[in-house]
């Protein structure tokens, strides 16, 4: 599904990312953890062709990301506010996306139904621009947008950050359900070890741009990670 080969990102002398090889099979929930500056966001940005790699390549479903745009049809992502049109209201934003993805009104309604609980009546039907929403609500809009248009791969950067505890639990349920029903491949970076070990089948630990652990065993994950982060 997703392969990363010999990927390197260098700013002048400093190597910020150096991933020799990484395969993510379809339907996997892939967790990415690491301390600040480990290169999580850079890795996601390169995988989404937002940042140019110094060397190496990323392919999604066989499409090399910096050669074609085909993969964008089935890839959703929410990394930060730059991915929102913050001067629209959430409703207008979803409508815009609906047109971009060529969905019908009914499709959109079905999709947004799934978020009713997460939105908690604070997003839809409100006369408020996205830029005026709170950070948590902003994130909810972004996540709903990333999952729109029947994607097969979804990138989420710190999805639990800024969410209140009940929203965090709802989001977790939502991701698990989507994974179950639609076989979406999730790539999630997070600082919250509890959440990420709970939903992810596999966790990769980055340190200074390098993969230093690749954990598949659910029972082992928490212990290994705690051992690492406790230092």
């Amino acid at each position, binding site marked *: 599904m997703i392969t990363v080969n010999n990927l390197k990102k260098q700013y002048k002398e400093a190597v910020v990312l150096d991933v020799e090889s990484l395969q993510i099979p379809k339907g996997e929930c892939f967790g990415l953890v690491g301390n600040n500056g480990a290169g999580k966001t850079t890795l996601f940005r390169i995988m*989404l062709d937002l940042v140019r790699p110094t060397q190496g390549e990323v392919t999604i479903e066989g499409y090399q990301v910096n050669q074609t745009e085909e993969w*964008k049809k089935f890839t959703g992502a929410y990394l930060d506010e730059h*991915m*929102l*049109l913050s001067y629209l209201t959430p409703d207008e934003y979803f409508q*815009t996306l609906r*047109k971009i993805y060529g969905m019908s009104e009914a499709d959109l309604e079905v999709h947004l139904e799934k978020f009713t609980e997460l939105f908690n009546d604070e997003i839809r039907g409100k*006369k*408020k621009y996205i830029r005026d929403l709170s950070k948590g609500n902003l994130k909810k809009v972004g996540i709903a947008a990333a999952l729109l248009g029947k994607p097969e791969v979804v990138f989420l950067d710190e999805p639990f950050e800024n969410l209140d505890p009940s929203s965090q639990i709802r989001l977790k349920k939502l991701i698990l359900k989507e994974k179950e029903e639609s076989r979406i491949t999730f790539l999630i970076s997070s600082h919250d070890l509890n959440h990420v070990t709970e939903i992810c089948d596999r966790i990769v630990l980055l340190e200074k741009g390098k993969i230093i652990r690749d954990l598949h065993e659910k029972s082992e994950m928490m212990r290994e990670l705690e051992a690492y982060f406790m230092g």
Partner: protein
Amino acid sequence: MFFELIRLQFLKSLRSTSFAKSLLTNIFLGFIILLLLGYVFGAGLLLNRVIGQLAEGQDSLEVLNSYLIFFFLTEFLYRYFIQSLPVVDLESLLHLPIGKRKIMHMLLIRTFISPINIIALLLFLPFGLEVVATRFGDMAFLGWLGSLVLTSWILHWFMLWFKQRFEDSTVGLLIVMGVLVLGGGSSYMGWFNLGELTKPMFDLAITSPIPLILLFLAFLGSYWLCYRYHLENAYLEDLSPEGETRISGQSIGFFSRFGLSGEMANIEWKLIVRHKKSRTYLMLSAFFLLYGMVFYTQPAYMENERLSFILIFVGVFITGIFMIQYGQLFLSWNSGNFDFYLQKKDGVEQLVRGKYLLFISISVICFLASIPYVYFGWKILLTHAVTFLFNVGILIHVIIYLALWKPKPMDLNKGAMFNYEGVGAAQWLMVIPMMIMPYVFYLPFALLINEYAGLAALGIFGLLGILFYKKLSAINVRRVYENKYEISSSFRQEL
């Protein structure tokens, strides 16, 4: 503490990324300001002689005193448009244990250090020395000049209060309009002569210190008013300038015929209507439609049978003002959400095409709106039609091509006046090809055959450009794709 705050302010302006990046712009601006102040001072030196010429036989001091009120009315107007509010810096200081009063005093006093505040001094100092001091002595000179400068400074504080109080509201605009009507209209229409009514005050300033003292008290009072108001409103919720609940700008149905790029044009339209800076640009475009009045009423350009060269320029400007103004910051408008377009399939292409669609539509509207100029002769209409074709056929591609040279991020919620965010060397240099381009097509034919051949050439090349629209716009789309990494990483930086 106070000096620490000033040092922080200094560091802030020194270290802001936009300062370092647009050093050229800043130097240029500084130069322009010096130049303008120089002109003001020059005008001050010549003031006595100019008045002597204009109002022969009358006492120049009497004349000046009776017209001073109009100077201050003008000052009121330009202060309204130029003067910026200090509150933007407040956010990062409010939570610290520094007293709000201290911060406010500092912010207000900082706004006082501005070239605008020495205009009155520069303009009237030479006149005062030349006329008032020689005729009435030094004390009179001090009283007179002091009153003028103080009046100007009162306007400074008053305007800070006024703008904060009525920012972006119709009331404020109405008051400004009212001042305009009162100032210009009343004397012109002969209702009452404002100048004569206020003259005694300035006359009195020469002979007695009372006006100076009164004005000084008013000066302190206006500072106090401004200070109190700002202090009472020093809360974050009051600082956000726009009403949160008002949703403006609806979709324009017409665009939906153009598929996805039409949708992008729609979004772009909302972007324009919902941000302060872009709104100002839009209003300026509407305003520049009147530009023709300046030229077409001048006999010098209109009387002779030949078509003046300058009219081509006017035509280009009137029908293309929006694409020239708004288009020069082409992608910077989307600097806050460029990743959105990058992440969608063909998103960037649709964005660029949507902008094309919007520019062309607005150009059509400008052309249609300019049709009444036919009153000044059908040649004007012809020129407008031809320059319109040229604008949408060729100039649009040139502007966008040039604007794609290292676009910079900018904050759309700041005002447009004297805001040079997003402006780099490209935007300055862009003016040259824009001025020259139409003439490159026009002049050879106009000089070799006649001006109508020149117009025809302009129109035909414009039409050719429209025919090859797909090919030409593809060049710009490709240019965005080639530079997308650089553009998106520069947009992701903090301002």
